[in-house]
């Protein structure tokens, strides 16, 4: 589903590359944790998948297609196949929960009937039944992140990228979010989640790819993560 072939990303010539000759394969339906300290290259990985940035060397394939060969007018189509969730939720503060999720469908031209039918289902999937008309500021952090996840998956993308989705949440709330992501993964969506929260990684027991200074230092099928020390205990 996502393949990095010897990918290097350099933001400027002097500094150390953000990604340094990374090769990585994520299969359809996989759940992968991308772990590592801040600045290890997790966000760069996500930006490259979305074609927000171009790889300096090497090739990035998404759903079998080399993103470097996608013309700029086809990039929106690439992004429709990928949902994204961020640490800071990025909801529209002046729209209701329903409208925030519906927005993602409106801008790609879905009909009102389809939106009315789909949005409540997706809100139920993330556990927000009955909160359609709440405003974002009336919700807890965990609920806001659930709205953001609903928005990311409402167009049924094949891939869900989550960049530190639990970074602003307490451990209990975080586990709730992880349950939602796991359920989405069970339904067949490939999930790549960047995090440095070792509790979550260790509880979930999924594939763990650890980045350090732009290089993959570890790729375990059912790994654990013990934070910045980088010690590996299996």
């Amino acid at each position, binding site marked *: 589903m996502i393949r990095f072939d010897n990918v290097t990303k350099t933001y400027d010539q002097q500094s150390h590359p953000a990604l340094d000759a990374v090769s990585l394969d994520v299969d359809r339906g996989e759940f992968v944790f991308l772990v590592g300290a801040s600045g290890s290259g997790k966000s760069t990985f996500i930006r490259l998948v979305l074609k927000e940035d171009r790889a300096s060397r090497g090739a990035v394939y998404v759903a079998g297609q080399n993103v470097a060969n996608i013309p700029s*007018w086809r990039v929106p189509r690439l*992004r429709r196949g990928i949902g994204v969730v961020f640490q800071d939720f*990025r909801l529209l503060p002046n729209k209701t929960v329903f409208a925030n999720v519906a*927005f*993602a469908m*409106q801008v*790609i*031209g*879905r009909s009102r009937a389809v939106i009315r039918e789909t949005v409540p289902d997706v809100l139920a999937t993330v556990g927000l039944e009955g909160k359609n008309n709440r405003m974002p500021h009336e919700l807890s952090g965990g609920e806001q992140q659930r709205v953001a996840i609903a928005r990311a998956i409402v*167009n049924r993308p094949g891939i869900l990228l989550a960049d530190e989705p639990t970074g602003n949440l307490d451990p209990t709330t975080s586990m709730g979010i992880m349950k939602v992501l796991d359920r989405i993964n069970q339904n067949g969506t490939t999930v790549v989640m960047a995090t440095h929260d070792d509790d979550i990684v260790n509880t979930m027991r999924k594939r763990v790819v650890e980045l350090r200074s732009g290089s993959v230092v570890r790729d375990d099928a059912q790994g654990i993560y013990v934070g910045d020390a980088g010690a590996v205990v299996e």
Partner: protein
Amino acid sequence: MRLAFILSEIGSGIRRNLSMVTSVILVTFISLTFVGAAGLFQLQIGQMKGYWYDRVQVTIYLCVDNSSEASCATGPVTEDQRAAIEATLESEQFAQYVDTVTYESQEEALGHFRDQFANSPIVDSVTADQLPESFRVSLVDAEKYEVIDEAFSSEPGVDAVSDQRDFLEAIFRYMNWASVVSLVIAGVMTFCAILLIATTIRLSAFSRRRETGIMRLVGASKAVIQLPFVLEGVIAAVIGAVLASATLWGASKFLIDGWLVKTFPQTAFISSQQVLILVPALILLGAVLAGLSSLLTLRRYVKV
């Protein structure tokens, strides 16, 4: 659905940015009014040229009842005098200067007069016998006007010899100046309008950066992201163009139809209906200006 969505985005953009949108409307209004004024001067010149330029000839006016020239001492021109003048014009002596000679009777003079002053109230009060008969002489070389003037101005039966070219060209010169001045003002104001539209779009893009960021992430096309901004500028500019058109029409209605035509009944003026042909041009100009400047701004400030 997408159209309704874009329209609602435009609506919210204009509401959020009302003061900037108002200033865009006003600046395009002023700049297009001056563009239109320059256009009106050119139309007026065209109106006068259209009738006169091909016809600028040396005209030998023959005496009528109330002519006061010495050569008209015997009253209105007689058959013999007219025949003598015509014979001289067509003689060998003048063949090298004169291209064609056309006789214009009093009836024909009235017909031309009516054509030329169709918008003027004076038309109704003029009768054929008040207008002189004339010979319209087109010259081989228009500069040789003097020759005709010397030869005929004191002939019996000739009231006056005139060459309208000098008079017309002086007027056209002033009107061309006026249209250059309004074009310069229009240019400066248009420049202001472009900068202002760019600033407005920038502010609008900044205040909606969350929305556009999310639109990008969920795969909205470039058109859906940018169109609301472009249309916001275009709508403001078109409103400005409509105001400018209304102002020009009103001004021409009051100034030309209401005042100039009555005060200078001898001059052919454009009518306020003719102002209406400028309207589509002004609206198109406003829309294109706003569209281009907002597209250029968006390229810099809204990532797609």
